[in-house]
């Protein structure tokens, strides 16, 4: 089995363990878009400190880990127009759908939520078509 797959599995178990702790201890669903979005639009004002604490861990700790191993890269496109359009779509879409890869994907599918399964089918389908169109046909990304 290629090393990337093993690392994927190990990292995935860590993500799932994080979500499991958040559920069993704090009684909450670990959805990144919901936690961030509630701070951005003010709907999560009542528990803002917990949201900030989670996001702080999410930013700082991988930052330290990446620094400790000599740096990491995202290989994000340098095309700013693509970045802006993509960011807007991710922001609007995840809030309209009430969830993203972590909320609908990890937390939804694991409880066999129909909404989570359908959301995941649509964002993977749309993402696949987007890569085909913009990479192979238009050559933009």
């Amino acid at each position, binding site marked *: 089995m290629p090393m990337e*797959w093993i690392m994927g*599995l*190990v*990292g*995935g178990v*860590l*993500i*799932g363990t*994080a*979500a499991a702790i958040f*559920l069993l*201890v704090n*009684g909450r*669903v670990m959805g990144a878009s919901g936690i961030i*979005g509630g701070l951005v*639009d003010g709907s999560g004002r009542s528990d803002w*400190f*917990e*949201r900030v604490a*989670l*996001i702080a*861990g999410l930013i*700082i*700790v*991988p*930052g330290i880990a990446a620094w400790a191993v000599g740096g*990491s*890269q*995202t*290989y*994000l496109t340098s095309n700013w127009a693509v970045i802006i359009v*993509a*960011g*807007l*779509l*991710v*922001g*609007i879409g995840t809030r*309209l*759908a*009430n969830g*993203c*890869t*972590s909320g*609908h994907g990890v937390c939804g599918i*694991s*409880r066999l939520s*129909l909404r989570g399964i*359908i959301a995941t089918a*649509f*964002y993977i389908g749309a*993402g*696949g*078509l*987007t*890569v085909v169109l*913009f*990479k*192979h046909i238009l050559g933009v*990304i």
Partner: protein
Amino acid sequence: MRSLVSFIVGALFGLGLLISGMTQTTRVQGWLDVFGDWDPTLAFVMGGAIIPMAIAWQFTRGRKPVLAASFPAPPEPRVGRNLVIGSTLFGVGWGLAGLCPGPAMASLTFGGAGGWLFVGAMFAGMLAAPPIRARLDQQLVPV
């Protein structure tokens, strides 16, 4: 105490994203690129994450969270238009950049200016979502 737990949860989440390669946009786009050089790593990440979480959901039955009054309500059965439209828009953005909200935050310290630009645009999109939702609910025929 709940905030300390939240910090640890964020830390594990971020480490998992980094280790699994999900902060690398090329890996995510590689998973979506079924007609190119397909990269199945994301399936291992999803599978690995779903296993502990599925066990955790089983564990919630008849119990209470350690530091909260109750567990989240059961998922709403109605699928609805916003779920489908929203997930489709999200998928297009995810495919274009190879970033979703978790990895976008987790890579802020090493992702350069582009990473900050993406997060800025994502915040703008999140602010735009409630009025768009209100308009969708108002103008289109209910399904």
